[in-house]
């Protein structure tokens, strides 16, 4: 397992490099121009000058190499500097966004908190709701609860967030006036009241996002529970005189969680990736909205960096999922 992990980690380096190259080429190939959002009143010559100032005149391989150096060599140094007060990276050119002309990573760091607050909470809430629903619908398969659960979760899955978002806003913010719907990213939690406010402003986006998570995870949970409930070992557990709750919640659940946990782990990168549409609807301005604005502005360094961070998380969490799979299920072996 250790060798497996190490081998996978080592293998992930070329994988990631390759991914970064593919992403880079993709972005290069994609039509679009960082000057697209510049007003039409700006004459083409000026735009051309601005493009040059962004470094767009250089050949592709040089730009890719530059990005590699900036991302893999300079940015880590900046991080070390930040934590230990050293000065390795002073004066080195970091990955600079074309839109803000500031280091991309600074913005990322600035935005991670709200993304984690909202998307992360939604994920946790979604899982917390999904698991009981999945477990109970499987335990009482084809009962009223199961039917309703299926119905609601599938509806939740089939309705896009650009609909549920405004719907919740209309009901809870406009009609009832209970919750704000423009997320205040400058809000800091330092006492009970501000915590309450934070809760209030999180509720709507969290609800929208949790709906999707719940729908998906509860389907997997239910299917997995169903697979396990009829296994012989469940009968053995019952024959030992264990109570139903122990039988279901310990014996069956532990087995059913194996695939579900990996599904959950695989969903993790999405938390850091943010939720593009929901962030837009509620003006949360997390990573997701950073990516989408960068995309629309053709801010290639930002897009490249964000997509690549996302790719790293995907590779990492896929590894975690595989390891978890191996750890949770003693039958699986890696060699």
């Amino acid at each position, binding site marked *: 397992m250790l060798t497996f992990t190490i081998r996978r980690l080592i293998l992930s380096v070329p994988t990631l490099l390759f991914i970064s190259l593919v992403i880079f080429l993709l972005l290069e190939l994609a039509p679009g121009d960082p000057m697209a959002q510049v007003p*039409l009143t700006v004459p083409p010559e000026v735009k051309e000058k*601005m493009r040059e100032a962004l470094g767009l005149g250089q050949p592709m391989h040089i730009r890719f190499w530059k990005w590699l150096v900036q991302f893999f060599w300079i940015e880590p140094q900046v991080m070390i500097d930040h934590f230990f007060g050293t000065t390795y990276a002073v004066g080195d050119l970091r990955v600079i966004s074309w839109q803000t002309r500031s280091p991309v990573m600074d913005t990322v760091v600035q935005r991670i908190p709200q993304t984690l607050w909202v998307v992360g909470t939604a994920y946790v809430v979604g899982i917390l709701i999904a698991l009981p629903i999945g477990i109970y619908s499987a335990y009482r398969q084809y009962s009223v609860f199961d039917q309703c659960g299926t119905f609601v979760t599938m509806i939740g899955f089939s309705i896009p967030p650009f609909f549920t978002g405004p719907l919740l806003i209309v009901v809870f913010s406009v009609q009832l006036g209970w919750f704000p719907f*423009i997320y205040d990213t400058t809000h800091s939690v330092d006492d009970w009241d501000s915590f309450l406010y934070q809760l209030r402003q999180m509720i709507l986006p969290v609800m929208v996002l949790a709906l999707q998570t719940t729908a998906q995870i509860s389907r997997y949970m239910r299917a997995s529970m169903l697979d396990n409930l009829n296994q012989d070992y469940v009968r053995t557990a019952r024959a030992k005189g264990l109570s139903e709750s122990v039988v279901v919640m310990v014996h069956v659940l532990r087995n059913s969680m194996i695939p579900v946990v990996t599904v959950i782990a695989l969903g993790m990168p999405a938390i850091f990736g943010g939720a593009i549409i929901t962030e837009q609807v509620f003006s949360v301005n997390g990573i997701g909205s950073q990516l989408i604005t960068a995309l629309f502005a053709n801010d290639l360094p930002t897009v490249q960096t964000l997509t690549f961070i996302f790719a790293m998380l995907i590779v990492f969490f896929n590894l975690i999922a595989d390891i978890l799979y191996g750890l949770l299920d003693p039958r699986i072996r890696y060699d």
Partner: protein
Amino acid sequence: ERGSDGHVNIIYWQAPSILNPYLSSGTKDIESASLVVEPLGRYDQDGALVAYLAEEIPTVENGGVSEDLKSITWKLKSGLKWSDGSDVTSADVKFTADYCMNPEGGCAQLAKFEGVDSVEIIDDLTVTVTFGEPKPNPYGPFMGGQSPIIQMAQFENCTGAKAPECTEANFGPIGTGPFVVTDFRPNDVISMVANDNYRDAAKPAFASLTFKGGGSAMASGRAVLETGEFDYAWNLQLAPDVLAKMAAGGKGTPVSAFGTLVERIEMNLTNTSPDLPEGERGTVMHPHPFLTDLNVRKALSMAIDRDLLVEIGYGQAGRPTCNLVPAPLAYASDNTDCLVQDIEGAKALLDEAGYVVGSDGVRAKDGVRLSMLYQTSTNAVRQDFQALIKQWWEEIGVETELRNINASVFFGGDPGSPDTFQRFYADVEMYANNFDGTDPESYLAQHTCDKAPKPETQWQGENMNRYCDPLYDELVAELGRTGSLAKRGEIAKKLNDMLTKESYVVVPLVDRGRVSAHANSLGGVVLNTWDSELWNVADWYRIK
């Protein structure tokens, strides 16, 4: 009294990415920066010039502009202070010009400084800008939100290639405006407090300000009009019925004003058939099979009901127009003959021109079918327009295929993409354009022969329809030489008419105004489309 009205919340559904207008020309960036940095003079709501940091607006009459129109001399108000307490001097003004004109800086406002030969410091408060050629309109540099004065002390080490590295300065410029940045989160939110050193001791009324960006026009409209979470929302590009419904919320008021933005259809005079080889496709080598026929272009224009377009798409924020230059008054032609839809007339015109309706309902002449590709950027209103116009055109026997392209591709100049509006691989396309300030000279000059995008120029250029008329080019040149305002107006109107009612290569549809909204409790808002909307934020106050 300064700071007595507490806090004000502004929401822009596009978030500012930087507060240095010289590094970005996005409206959101310029307008948010206008809270902090100011130019020497601005345009007011009517397009008239008002002095800001300057003592007065220099003109030929008051001697500020030389007789030969080759130089302009600005005088700063005395006693101006930067928000850090230091004095504003003419060195800062000259530095600003140097900063933008640095060839490596990639300055977004370089066009403002076009033709500037030198900027000289006369004394502490006086600078003279000298142009290489006579400039009938010398108000490019230091005028309007695009060209504010920045502090030399702060940006001294940030010139040229180093400009983007000064993140701190770009995110928090020291200015003379009513507010000072305390926290800037790119593409998200700006927190500001009142500037202690603002020149008017009684202003601004608000002690602090939050400038939130992001979301959608829908959400920001709601936040002002329906829930009252915000005090001011910018540019509510919403369907009129939606806006009206929101306004019924009663928390705020939409306000509108008109500028020079015109939604128009451009006719392609070259053939863009995919069968042509790349390099020749879409160039003057191959004229368009039927759009080169004036009658067809005219008929297409006649079939459009502009009133209905306005009603459906813009409501109070739009009015039908037949002009490319709808304002200011001095330049606007009185051309109104397109305003009435005339389907029958259009049909007759086409009949006359020999285009007969075929069995499939599509007109054709000599085997050339009137079948067109109509492209525009993705946008709800534009798609409604497309649908309507397509229907009208089909009524007169013109087959229309619609295409909508992502705005970031459409308006981007990527020479590799076939979908940009410059490349114009379609028969007609629709978008909106305007000009900066109040002078249309360079705007009209966009339709000269040499401005046509072509492969040799990497498809850059502004003359999308490849219109080429030597007469027109000549008139443009004459406009450049003319100083008298009346004469200039006359020439401009002539140019406008040449493009519109005489040739119909440009078919204006709607004069698009701007709708913004403010809370009912926010006073002092004067909507201005000639400059930053937040131009008079110092005068805003809370209605108690």
